[in-house]
């Protein structure tokens, strides 16, 4: 079992015992199992996958830092963390489009990097949100006959 803590500046999002967690880091996605080596890694915007009781939970995180301590403790300090259920797909899509437009308008390298990071964040949110609504399935009224 992993002792897992996920905190954002505003709140403690999750504190639980889990089986494993996949973390999007700057060096690629890593999966942490119990007895992992002590590690500190920078986060990338992406999806955080928590596995417990045979189920997978998806969260969208933007930047931050992840820390693995001895004794199977994992702590994640994220700038933001949202569960799939909390993300409104339509609004996330609109935000992504706005970010894409802003990136095209970016004048210097710094602006471009900022907007690229924003875009990556929105893409990650969308990806997580779509986990709940798979694209091949259209939610709607069920035919009666």
């Amino acid at each position, binding site marked *: 079992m992993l002792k897992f*803590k996920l*905190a954002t500046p505003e709140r*403690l999002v999750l504190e639980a015992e889990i089986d494993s967690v996949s973390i999007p880091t*700057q060096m690629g996605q890593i999966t942490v199992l119990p007895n992992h080596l002590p590690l500190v890694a*920078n986060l990338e915007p992406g999806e955080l996958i928590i596995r417990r009781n045979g189920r997978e939970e998806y969260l969208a995180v933007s930047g931050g830092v992840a820390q693995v*301590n001895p004794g199977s403790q994992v702590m994640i300090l994220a700038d933001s963390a949202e569960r799939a259920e909390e993300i409104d797909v339509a609004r996330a899509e609109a935000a992504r489009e706005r970010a894409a437009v802003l990136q095209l308008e970016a004048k210097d390298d710094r602006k471009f990097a900022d907007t690229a990071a924003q875009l990556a964040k929105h893409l990650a949110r969308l990806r997580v949100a779509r986990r709940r609504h798979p694209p091949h399935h259209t939610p709607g009224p069920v035919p009666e006959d």
Partner: protein
Amino acid sequence: MATSKEIRRRIKSVRSTRQITKAMQLVSAVKMRSAQRTALASRTYAKLSWALLQQLAQVTPEHLHPLLTNRTKVAKEAVVVITANRGLAGSFNAALIEHVAAYLRGRVAAGVACDIILLGKRGRALVTRYGFSVVAEYERLDSYTDMAQTLPIARQAIKDFLEKRYDQVTLAYTEFYNTLKQEPLTVTLLPTKVSALKAAMERTVGALGTGQEPEHIFEPTPQLVLDALLPRCIEMQVYQATLESSASEHSARMVAMKNATDAANDLISDLTLSYNQLRQAGITRELTEISAGRLALEK
């Protein structure tokens, strides 16, 4: 001696004042609770990020990071002052402004040019009453629930510091201890001193570990992790300061309004007593006059 009509009018006016102070007391109590809750909710992050920073400071030489480096000569300093937008909160604003003014006088005497950055309208007294120069004023929101709300302040401070516009950035706010105790405080925000940050965190979060942790692998490198973490710690400190200030403000206002309500109650009972005495005296006088008149007629 006031006439009974005057006393009645005064009772009425004190009553309506009491109604207002009572309402403000209740509103502040609710706001205080929510401000305290937000302040508590963000402490986990503050605590964890501090512990990590301390670990990093041990593996990376402090002088390598520009945000950690002390400037040899401090010529220009920015002071971020967090006050309330409104008054009627006891000595909340006055105490902080006094404290900041004393601090600024000390800095000016030491040959440092100080610029003030305001958050909250009440801080304007620093210009009008003490004549210090204000370079920027941020709009103070009614409640803070998201770090994005204070991000511009922290980002601008970091930018100005790195561009050498300022050699030091100081944060002045009111620290919240409990409902009855709040204290004005100045802390150095930039350059970040790990020891000072520890003190700041311990004031709000309580005792922390020694940071004697086993060796970690840092990905990509300790330097890059520090680059990512340090600005976040600074942003967090500004956010935490606004939360502390909000909690202090609402507590101070609640206590002030409670005192006002109590004082109004005392005043009303005093006035009612003298009103009744006056009424009694009037009745007695009239009775004597009537019986005197009757005696005069019987003769």
